C-alpha cells in the first residue's frame, strides 16, 4: 500500500465519521457545550462565599454572647447564647460540605468540617479536659471541641437550666473551656472565609473535569457531605451499620439541644440547592442540573433524580417535630424512612451524575488507548 492509499483511507474514515454524525444530528441536534465557569461562579458567589461569611459572622455573635454568659452566668444570658449557637449551627449546614481549597485537610490539620464539627461530642472527654484545666486542644480528640461540644456545654440534657448555670458558677475552667471552643470555631470559620476571597479566582478559572479541577474537588466534597448526612446523621444513630445491635439515639448530631432534625433538613436543603444551582439567597443559577441538561442522557437523569428527591423530601416532611433522638426510640420507622430514601437517592448523585458528566474521581491512571 502506498502513502497515497493510506491518506485515502484516512479521508474515507473521516467521511464515514461525518456521515454517521449527520444522520444522527437529525434526531438530536444539540451541541454539548456547557459553561463550567458559570457553574463554578454560581457555586462560589452564590453558595460557598456567603455560607462561610454568614457562618463566620454568626460565630462572632456567638462569641460575644458566650463571653457575656461566662462574665455573668444567668438564665437570660444563657438563652441568648443558645439562640446565637442555634443560628450559627443552622447556617453552618450550608458551609459544611465545601472541604477543599482553604477548608481542605493540610498536614496535621484535618478538614474544617472535621476540625470544628465532629459529632457526636463526647461528654466524658469534655469533662475530663475541663477537670484537667486543659483548653489547649493539642490532642486528636476532635469530639471534645467544636460546635457540638458547645451543644453539650450550653444545652446539657438531664439537668435543669439552673443546675447548668450553677456548674459555670463553680467551675472556672468550664467557663474557659466553653470560651475556648467558641473561639476555635469562630477562628476556623473566619480564616476560611477570608481565604476564599483570594481563592475564588483560581477556583473559577480551574474549570476542567480532571482530578485536581474545581469541578472534581467540589463534586467529591458534595458527595462526601451527602454520605455524611445519610450515614452519620441517620445511619449510625438508627443502628443501621452491620454489627450494631441497638439504636444509638445519643449519636445524633445535636443531642443536647435537640435540633438534629432541623439541622439535617437544613443540610438536605443545601444539597438540593447545590444540585439545582440555587444560591443561598434563593437566586436561581447554573448548577449540576444545568450541566446535565447539556450532556447525553442528562434529561433522563434529571427526571429520575427529581422523582427520588421528591420522595426524600416527603420522608423529611414526615419526620415528627421534636428531638430526633426521641423519634428514633419512639417512632423508628419515620426516621428510618429518611435513611432509606436517602439511600435510594445515592446513585443519582453518585455514579450516575459523575459518569454522565465525565468527572474524574480518582488519581489512578486509566486504561490507555
Amino acid at each position, binding site marked *: 500500500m502506498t502513502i497515497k492509499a493510506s491518506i485515502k483511507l484516512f479521508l474515507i474514515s473521516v467521511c464515514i465519521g461525518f456521515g*454517521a454524525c449527520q444522520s*444522527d444530528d437529525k434526531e438530536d441536534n444539540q451541541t454539548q457545550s456547557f459553561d463550567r465557569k458559570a457553574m463554578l461562579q454560581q457555586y462560589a458567589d452564590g453558595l460557598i462565599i456567603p455560607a462561610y461569611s454568614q457562618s463566620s459572622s454568626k460565630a462572632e455573635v456567638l462569641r460575644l454572647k458566650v463571653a457575656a454568659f461566662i462574665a455573668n452566668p444567668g438564665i437570660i444570658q444563657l438563652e441568648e447564647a443558645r439562640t446565637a449557637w442555634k443560628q450559627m449551627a443552622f447556617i453552618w449546614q450550608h458551609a459544611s460540605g465545601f472541604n477543599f481549597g482553604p477548608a481542605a485537610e493540610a498536614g496535621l490539620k484535618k478538614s474544617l468540617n472535621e476540625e470544628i464539627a465532629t459529632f457526636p461530642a463526647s461528654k466524658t472527654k469534655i469533662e475530663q479536659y475541663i477537670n484537667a484545666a486543659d483548653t489547649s486542644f493539642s490532642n486528636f480528640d476532635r469530639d471534645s471541641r467544636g460546635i457540638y461540644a458547645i451543644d453539650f456545654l450550653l444545652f446539657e440534657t438531664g439537668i435543669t437550666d439552673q443546675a447548668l448555670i450553677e456548674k459555670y458558677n463553680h467551675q472556672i475552667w468550664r467557663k474557659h473551656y466553653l470560651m475556648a471552643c467558641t473561639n476555635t470555631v469562630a477562628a476556623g470559620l473566619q480564616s476560611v472565609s477570608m481565604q476564599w476571597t483570594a481563592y475564588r479566582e483560581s477556583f473559577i478559572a480551574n474549570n476542567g*473535569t480532571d482530578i485536581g479541577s474545581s469541578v472534581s474537588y467540589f463534586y467529591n466534597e458534595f458527595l462526601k457531605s451527602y454520605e455524611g448526612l445519610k*450515614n452519620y446523621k441517620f445511619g449510625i444513630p438508627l443502628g443501621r*451499620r452491620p454489627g450494631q445491635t441497638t439504636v444509638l439515639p445519643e449519636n445524633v448530631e445535636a443531642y443536647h439541644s435537640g435540633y438534629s432534625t432541623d439541622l439535617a433538613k437544613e443540610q438536605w436543603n443545601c444539597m438540593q440547592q447545590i444540585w439545582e444551582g440555587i444560591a443561598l439567597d434563593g437566586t436561581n443559577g447554573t448548577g449540576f442540573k444545568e450541566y446535565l441538561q447539556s450532556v447525553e442522557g442528562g434529561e433522563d*437523569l434529571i427526571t429520575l433524580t427529581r422523582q427520588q428527591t421528591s420522595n426524600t423530601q416527603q420522608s423529611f416532611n414526615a419526620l415528627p417535630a421534636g428531638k430526633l433522638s426521641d423519634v428514633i426510640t419512639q417512632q423508628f420507622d419515620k426516621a428510618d424512612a429518611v435513611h432509606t430514601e436517602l439511600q435510594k437517592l445515592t446513585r443519582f448523585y453518585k455514579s450516575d451524575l459523575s459518569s454522565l458528566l465525565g468527572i474524574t474521581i480518582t488519581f*489512578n*491512571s486509566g486504561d490507555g488507548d
Partner: protein
Amino acid sequence: MKGWIQHAWFKQIDIAPLVSFRILFGAATFISTLRFCLSGWIGEHFIHTHVQFKYFGFEWLPLLSQQWIYLIHILMLLASLGILFGAFYRWSAIIFFVLFTYCELVDITYYLNHYYFVSLVSLMMCIVPANAAYSVDVWRKPSLGQTLVPAWSINIFRAQLIVVYFFAGIAKINYDWLIRALPLKIWLPANDTLPVIGWLFQYDATAYVFSWAGMLFDISVGYFLCKKETRLWAWLVVVFFHLITGWMFQIGVFPMVMIVSTLIFFGNTFHHRLLRFFQRIIRMKQVEVSEQNHTPYYQKPLVKAALTAFFATWFTFQVLFPLRYVLYPGNLYWTEEGYRFSWRVMLMEKAGTATFYVTDATTGKEGVVDNAQFLNPHQEKQLSFQPDLILQYAQFLKTYYEERGAVVSKVRAEVYVTLNARPSRLLISDQQNLLELTDSWQHKNWIIPFETE
C-alpha cells in the same frame, strides 16, 4: 510456507532493532516505576489498604509487608536500569518480570491493559538476547557480543504489538462506539478546556470522527507499520494518536510506552542511527564484535524446537483468549465475562453505586455497609460494576464481621450500574445471597441480563 517461516523466524538478522527496543523499554519501565513511587501509589495500593481483590486462581498470593513492598520497588527500579544498560541483563529481565507481575497480581482492581502488556513484554525480554550489543554485559565480557540474532527474537514483539492494536480495533466495532459515538460523546466535552483543540470537543461530530478514526487506526496500524513504504507515516500517526489521547485522558505512561515500542518496526539503518545517538549521550565505547568468533544464540535444534513450540502456544493464546467472550451469553460490556486481557481499552463509560447489606443471624438484623470504611475510591469505583469483585467483597465482609462476633448468614447488594449514559439499572438481583455463590469460568447466571433499548 516453509520459506516464510524460515524467513520470519529462523533467519539471522541484524540485532539493532532489538537493542533499541531493550534500551527504550528499560527507560520506559524505569520512568513508569519512578512515577508510580513519586505519585505515592505504593502507599495507596499496597500499604493503606484494608482489602485486596484477587485474580481468579491467584487468591493465595499474599500482600507482603511494607518493607518488602518498598524493597520490591527499589529492585524494580534497579532491574529497569539493568535492562536499559544491558547489565546482568538476564537476571534484570527476570527480576523485573516477576516483581512487576507480582505487583499487578496483588490487587485486580488496578488491572490495566497496559500493565498486562508490560508483563507480557518483560516475559519475552527474559528470553531474547537483547544484551548482545551496546550493553554493559558485552563490555564486561566481549565474547557475549553478537551482530545477528534469530528473526523471531524481534518479530515476537512486532507480533505482540499487532495483536494489541488489532484487538483494540475490533473491540471498537460495536453499536455504542460507532453509531452512538459513546463514550467519546461523554469524554470529549468533559475535556473542552484543553488548549488549541478543546473547542472542537463540544460538537457531536468530533466524537464521531474520533470514534471512527480510532477504530480504523487501531485495526490498520499494525499492517501499515509492517509495510516499508507506509511505516514512517504510520508511526507518525501513532505518535499523534497517542499524544492526543495522552493529553486528553488520565492514562499515565501508556502513550509513551506505545510510541517507543512501535519503533521496533523500523529497519536496521534507522536503529543503527538511533543506537549511535544513544552512544553519544552516554559516551560509551562500542565493543567491536567479529561474528566469526562466536556461535549465534539459540541454534541447537532442540532449543529451536522448544522455543518455536513455546511461541506458537503463546500467540495461539493471544489470538484465542480475547475471543473467549463469544462463549458467554449476554452483553459483554454489561457482564464483563471475557472482558479483561482482551485489549479493550477506553471502550466504555461505566459506573455504579453498590450498597452492601449484611445480615447477622444472631439478631436477625440487616446492616448497611459504609464502603468508605474498607475501600479506597478507586477500589470502590471498580467494585461497583464488576460482578466477580462484588462476590469477593461479600466474602470479605462476612469474614470481617464474623471476626467481630457476628454470625453472618447473608450478604446482598444493591448494585445500580450506568453504561454509556443509559439510566442506571440493577446489575444483579438485590435479594441474591452472595455468600451462596462462588466465582468460576462459568457464565454468571445471577447477573440480570442487559436488554438494549
